């Protein structure tokens, strides 16, 4: 058995009276890529956002259950969320660059972590943008507003921004949804590179992508975690009828 990086135990989540996650238990192994798949609205983003306590900002959200990051109880009231989020980075489903320049977007996370050396910052910005396959397109416009980028460029910028601070775990919510096949391939390369050092959890609607990059796949349906296992097993010998129908319903 692999080392478990994140251990989700019997997680329930309500928005007001509506239950969105139902008794979800899931092990995220360290140094691997875990893909979460499932139909739109089944709770993938909600689950992902639970891992770095993003629901704290929503007074209507109520969670119960337990999530462990190594030895740290993520949901515990005393947990320092700032440190937690420093360890678990996130790329959101809707690209959300800051209304700042491209360079500042990438260097933001480094600056708040105390890096002020201009040269080191510039280097880090370049490396992160290269990793996210965006450098060539923006290298002359680093001080232009990130809001003027195209949809796919914003998405890659957000990936670069998350990668720059080198968190232990990176959560990516459909990181390639706005990307063309070539950029997608480059981001997938990045993921495979990243998993050498870090743990990745990705949400994707692209079955091929899940098969290409992930080591493990979890299938969710209507708030429940139906099945989880090695990616090959899930796609080739799903145990559950729902999983089978879903992964076989894919086409192309």
């Amino acid at each position, binding site marked *: 058995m692999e080392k478990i990086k994140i251990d989700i135990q019997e997680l329930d989540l309500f928005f007001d009276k509506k239950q969105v996650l139902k008794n979800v238990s899931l092990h995220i192994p360290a140094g691997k890529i875990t893909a979460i798949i499932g139909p739109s609205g089944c709770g993938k983003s909600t689950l992902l956002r639970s891992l770095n306590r993003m629901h704290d900002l929503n007074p209507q959200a109520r969670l119960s259950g337990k999530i462990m990051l190594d030895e740290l109880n993520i949901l515990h009231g005393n947990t320092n969320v700032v440190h937690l989020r420093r360890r678990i980075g996130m790329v*959101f489903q809707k690209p*959300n660059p800051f209304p700042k320049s491209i360079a500042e977007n990438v260097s933001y996370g480094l600056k708040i972590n105390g890096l002020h050396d201009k040269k080191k910052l510039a280097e880090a910005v370049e490396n992160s943008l290269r990793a996210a396959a965006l450098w060539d397109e923006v290298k002359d416009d680093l001080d232009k507003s990130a809001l003027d980028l195209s949809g796919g460029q914003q998405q890659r910028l957000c990936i670069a921004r998350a990668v720059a601070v080198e968190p232990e775990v990176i959560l990516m919510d459909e990181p390639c949804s706005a990307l063309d096949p070539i950029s997608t391939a480059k981001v997938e390369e990045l993921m495979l590179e990243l998993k050498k050092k870090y743990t990745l959890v990705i949400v994707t609607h692209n079955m091929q992508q899940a098969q290409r990059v992930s080591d493990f796949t979890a299938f969710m349906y209507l708030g429940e975690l139906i099945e989880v296992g090695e990616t090959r097993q899930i796609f080739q010998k799903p145990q559950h009828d729902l999983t089978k129908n879903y992964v076989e319903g894919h086409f192309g």
Partner: protein
Amino acid sequence: MNQRLFWDKFFEKVFKGTAWVAVLTLVGIFLMLLINSARAFETISFAEFFSGTAWNPAAYGEATYGIGAMLFSTLLVTIGAMLIAVPLGIGAAAFLSEVASPRTRNILKPAIEMLAAVPSVVIGFLGIVLVAPALAKIFDLPHGLNALNGSILLAIMALPTLISVTEDAIHAVPQHYKEASYALGANRWETLLRVTLPSCTSGILVAIMLGLGRALGETMTVLMATGNATAMPNGFFDSVRTITATVAIEMGEVPFGTPHYFSLFACALVLFLITLLVNIAAERVAAGYRRKGQ
């Protein structure tokens, strides 16, 4: 479709109409001030008005019209007020929208807006009976009716506007900016200082400008609490008389159409121009900030 076109046109007319009525009224006031001020300079020389320090239109000997001392006093009191009110206001607004529980916020926000309706005399009164003795005691002065007292009271008067407008501007910053910052491991204050506040500079600017306007234009309070002495002050512990206080005191008693009468309009115009300059400067700074930020 025809009906819809009618309403289109109708609303276009109504909005343009209201906008123009509002704008023209304000422009009208400005012109009125300008014209009346201009007439002051038929008899009073520009040099005397701006460089003279003695304001004494009802002098025993020859009337003097120098706004130097008053201008300095006004700037002293106003800058003091802004130095107190702006940090407090932004701090309180940040607290209300980012830290306080929704319950606390729902109680405090209306309470603060309510304080915008405290009549200025009441505040002035507080200045006399509470702030002045306190200042006299703390700084060991013969009395506390001085520029500092005025600054404190004007800061109090500017606070409701500052807090309320800033809070709303902070509140309107899209949630996903904050989420992005938190997700990178920023804490509340870093997020506030580096993401939230920079995204709403224009709202904060509005808050500051309105607070400044309130402080510059306020009469009753300064009139009551600053000691109202026309001499050139040496600092915050001297009694001062501001431009507004002068206008307020003398406007009621000066006969129309005299140089004294026109000079009061010139005083009001000076207040205007100060606000305008500050406004332009602030816009520049903010625009520079925004440009850098983009």
